[in-house]
Structure formats: structure tokens, C-alpha cells
């Protein structure tokens, strides 16, 4: 739930109040395509990358530029962090939220993984890696390639060698 403020920046808040609480300090993040996001410092600190920057005093008044993360993906990562910071103890709710969160197309999931990797958000990485692993389970090699849109660029000799070594797993 994002509201556009007068100056065009998006406020993606996770708290119950619609106004920014004076005590929860905000930090501005800029996506690669120049969109601006206001986030609580607490939520932003879920990213170890940003957390270290804040601690080292590297964040100025302008905010943090994230040249590797596009706006749509950054919005999603922020939504994740806000949700986890808002009610960390409500395990059932969080589990339900997480399940819905990763229920996306695989290329979007990969984009989230890349962003979470760059931003170093461990919980989100763990969730996404487990999701990808679960997608791989019990699938044949061809099914995995199709699911993730991966081109088989083995040479025929390489492929034959691999199949020979672990033939039992391919039947």
C-alpha cells in the first residue's frame, strides 16, 4: 500500500499510522530507475548492506542510491522488510505472508534473489533459496530447464559424460 506524497515520492509504510512517527526515523532509498522510497531505518536495517552504511555514517541527507535494484523489485523487498519488522513474533501470519510473497513468476523470483543478495537480506535470501529448491525437487532435468527457462548449453559429449556418471538419477 503506497501513497504518493506531494513531491511525488512514494511512502511505503508498514506501520498502522498513516503519518510518519517522529521516533521511527526514515531513510530514503533510490532505485536504479530513479524512483524514491521512504523506509523506516528499522526496516532498512534488515539489509546488512544498508545497515553497515548507516552505522559507518555513509548515509547522507539525500539517501542511498541502489543502482542494482529496479523500482518494482525494490518495492517488493521493502514490503517484505516492513512486514517482518512490523510483527516479527506472529509466526503464522509471517508464514502466510511469506508463502504469498514468493508465489511469483520465476524470473521475478530470481530478480528478488539478486536484489536480496546485493542488499544482503538474509531472511529473504533463505526464503527465496528454499522456494527455488522446492521447485527443483522431484523434477527431471528437462522439466527444470523448462521451468526456469534455462538453455542446455552442454556439448553432446559433456551431457553424455554427466548422464553416464549418475545414470541412476535420470531414469
Amino acid at each position: 500500500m503506497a501513497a504518493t506524497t506531494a513531491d511525488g515520492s512514494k511512502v511505503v509504510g508498514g506501520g498502522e499510522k498513516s503519518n510518519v512517527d517522529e521516533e521511527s526515523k526514515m531513510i530514503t532509498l533510490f532505485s536504479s530507475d530513479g524512483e524514491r522510497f521512504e523506509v523506516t531505518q528499522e526496516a532498512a536495517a534488515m539489509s546488512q548492506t544498508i545497515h553497515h552504511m548507516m552505522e559507518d555514517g555513509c548515509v547522507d541527507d539525500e539517501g542511498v542510491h541502489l543502482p542494482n535494484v529496479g523500482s518494482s523489485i525494490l518495492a517488493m523487498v521493502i514490503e517484505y522488510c516492513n512486514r517482518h519488522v512490523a510483527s516479527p513474533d506472529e509466526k503464522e501470519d509471517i508464514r502466510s505472508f511469506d508463502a504469498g510473497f514468493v508465489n511469483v513468476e520465476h524470473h521475478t523470483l530470481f530478480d528478488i534473489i539478486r536484489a536480496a543478495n546485493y542488499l544482503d537480506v538474509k531472511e529473504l535470501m533463505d526464503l527465496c533459496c528454499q522456494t527455488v529448491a522446492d521447485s527443483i525437487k522431484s523434477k527431471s532435468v528437462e522439466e527444470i530447464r523448462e521451468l526456469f527457462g534455462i538453455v542446455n548449453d552442454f556439448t553432446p559429449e559433456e551431457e553424455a559424460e554427466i548422464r553416464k556418471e549418475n545414470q541412476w538419477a535420470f531414469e
Partner: protein
Amino acid sequence: MELEVTPPELPQDVLMDIFALLEIPDLVRAASVCPSWCSANTSLQKLGQYKRPQTPCLLYTSETDGESDARLYSLVEKRSYKLTLPEPPIRGRYLIGSSNGWLVTVDDRSEMHLLNPITWEQIVLPSVITLDPVAPIFDETGALCKYNFTSHEWCPPFTADLDELRWCLHDRAFVFYDTSVKHYIVVLIHYPRGQLSFAWLGDDKWTLLPPHRNFHDCLYKDGLLYAVAQQGEIFAFDVRGPMVTEKLIAPCGDLLQVWRIDEDVDSAPYDIHVGKVDIFKVDTALAKLVKINSLDDLVLVLGYNQSLCLSAEEYPGLKANHVYFTDDHGFNIFGHKDNRRDIGVFDLANNTRGELVSPQLWSNWPPPIWITPAITELCPTTVPPHTTTVSSSQFCNQACLRAAYIFFCIVCAYVIGWGYIV
């Protein structure tokens, strides 16, 4: 117009994190998807970062397969994989143990091997003639032709053919990894009367343990070999030095003792049919047994394999408070090759047993055995092996979570008509 774009690849370290979550069959397939995924798996293995616990599988053979073929039934995927194994043919071997991904087998010359059915690695163990009750008999050409076997001190030794000795001598075997000396040890329980001998990998002979008898099961933890005898007595030995020393058992978490009780069903002689499972916690301080009625979220995997006590949370393919069992009664297994095997899943909450898979997939001989797949090299040429394969790491995990569960299993057969506990 939407452009079809091949998604850029995930970084290698991320692929490694994903692959570290997969069990072996899925990992093998993932590594075959494309060169970049293959490379990630290679790195994962080389750096020793693949520590995923594996769900035990049932290893069995089938009459419709070849003599060197075996099958692995996966409890996770509910399907079987076919493996073609190295010589000598698996259907001609006795399977006397399964630990940490290794089968312990006895061939038709009564010699023992370690065999990893996934990696095909095979290791010859010290010759059977180095076991205490065995002496070789040579023919006029100097070739080994028979064995002398001393079954009891008061009986004269008898002569066994090369393939016959294994019926009289071998009972069960285990493979353990000692993290302090970073070495593998093989432990053999054998006749007469359940003696215990051991050999570190690389030894050229077996060492007989002093003089206790009637051992039934054993386990290795924190540098000590624990062995349980037929009536439930537990001994601990330090077998790392030049002399074996016996230790007092210090409380080191929970010890469980399990009794599998045969029920009387209309069946062939010596046909075992587990009808009840009783589990006791061993109070070493007070030297008594306390019956427990539930394993909560734990799962037991029992049989001729090394007994396993696992957390159902880590193994989604297994049901909590259940016992997955195969036969572990040596007389039944080796004495009656055509007998039906007692294999199934016991629900402790309802005290009921169920089929593992129906219809029966396996041939009765060699008897099916649980195995935990492993792809760690036993004898790598450069890097020391890692203690990743299940049992030892499971005990470490349990110790972190609660107490370490050390587990023993004893077969207790109520034979109706005889009316006593054997």
C-alpha cells in the same frame, strides 16, 4: 510486443546455497541442467559445504533385475531408483550393515567389503582369517580352500566352505567416523556368541575386543564405542589407542532402548511380525529404565542398518513418532532366505503397523536394508573426508537442539508357547 529474454544467471554462490538444500537425487539432476549449475555443484562439493542430511532409503534387489542390480526406494519421492553396482554381484552378497552411506557386505569367499552404492566406491576390509575364531585351510597347491571355525571353546572347530563361513560367523557391522582422529572404523559383531572385533580403515587385521559377549548393537560418539549386549547392558570402550580401555558411561544426553515385540500371527516358522514397540529411556545414574510413550517429533529407523533417531522436522518424508523398520533378527534373515521380511512403518501413537509400499517391491534375499545415501569420498587422495554423512552429524544436531539421543535397538521376541523373553 513482449521480448523473450533469457533470464540472466544467478550468481554461483547463490546457486551453491540453493543446491545445499537439495537431497542427493535432486542435486544430481540440478547439476546436470547446464554448465553453470554443474560448476556450482562442483564448487559446493570441493569446498566441503554440502552437508544436507539425507532421508534414509530402502535398498533392495528384485528378481526381475540383474545379479549386480539394486534398487533404492526413496521415502521422499515414493519411487525407486535402479543402480548397477560393482562386482562381486550384490545378489550374491550378505548385507550385514549400513552406516553413513556405506553398505558392509560379505562375498562368497566370506570376505568383507565396504560399498557406497551411489558413488561406487568400494573398499576391501581386513581378511576374515584375521578374526579370532577363524583359521585358513590351504590345499596342496597352497590355495585357500576352506576355513576352520571355532564356534565354542568346548567344541572342536568345524570346517566350513569358503562361502559357508559367513552363515556361521558374521552377524552385524557398522562404519563410524571419529572426528578427533579423523579416521573411519569398522566394527563387526560376530559369532561365537556375539563377540565384537574392529578395524580402523587401513588396518590389515581385525582386533578382538576383550572378553564381553552377546553384543547386539553399537554406536560411536565422542571418541567412544558404545555397545549394548543382549540383556540390555551397555559398555563403552576407547578404541583409539594401542590398548582398548573400557570406560564408565557418563550421562551424555538420552539413551533410548527399544524392544520390538513379535506378535503371534499365522505364518511360517521363524516368520517375525512386529506387533508392538516399547521404548525406554535409560537412566544411567539410577541404572533403571523408564518407559516413554511418545517420541514426539522424533523418528526411528531400525533394522540391520545403524540405528537412526531423526527429527521429523528435518525430514519431511518421514512421519513423527513413527518407527520405520526392516528385519534385524539375524537368525531369521540368514537362516531363512525365502522367508517374508518384516518391513513396515509403526505408528507409536496408535500402536499400529502399516506397509511401507504396496505391493511388495523387493526380493526376500538379500534382505532389504535402510541406507542413508552419501556422496562423500571415504578415501580422497587430497582432502580429508568430512563427517557429513548422516548419523554422526545427526547426533551433533540433536545435541544442539536438546539432548543427544543415543539409540540402541534390541529385538525381543515373545514366542507364544515358549512364554519367555529371549
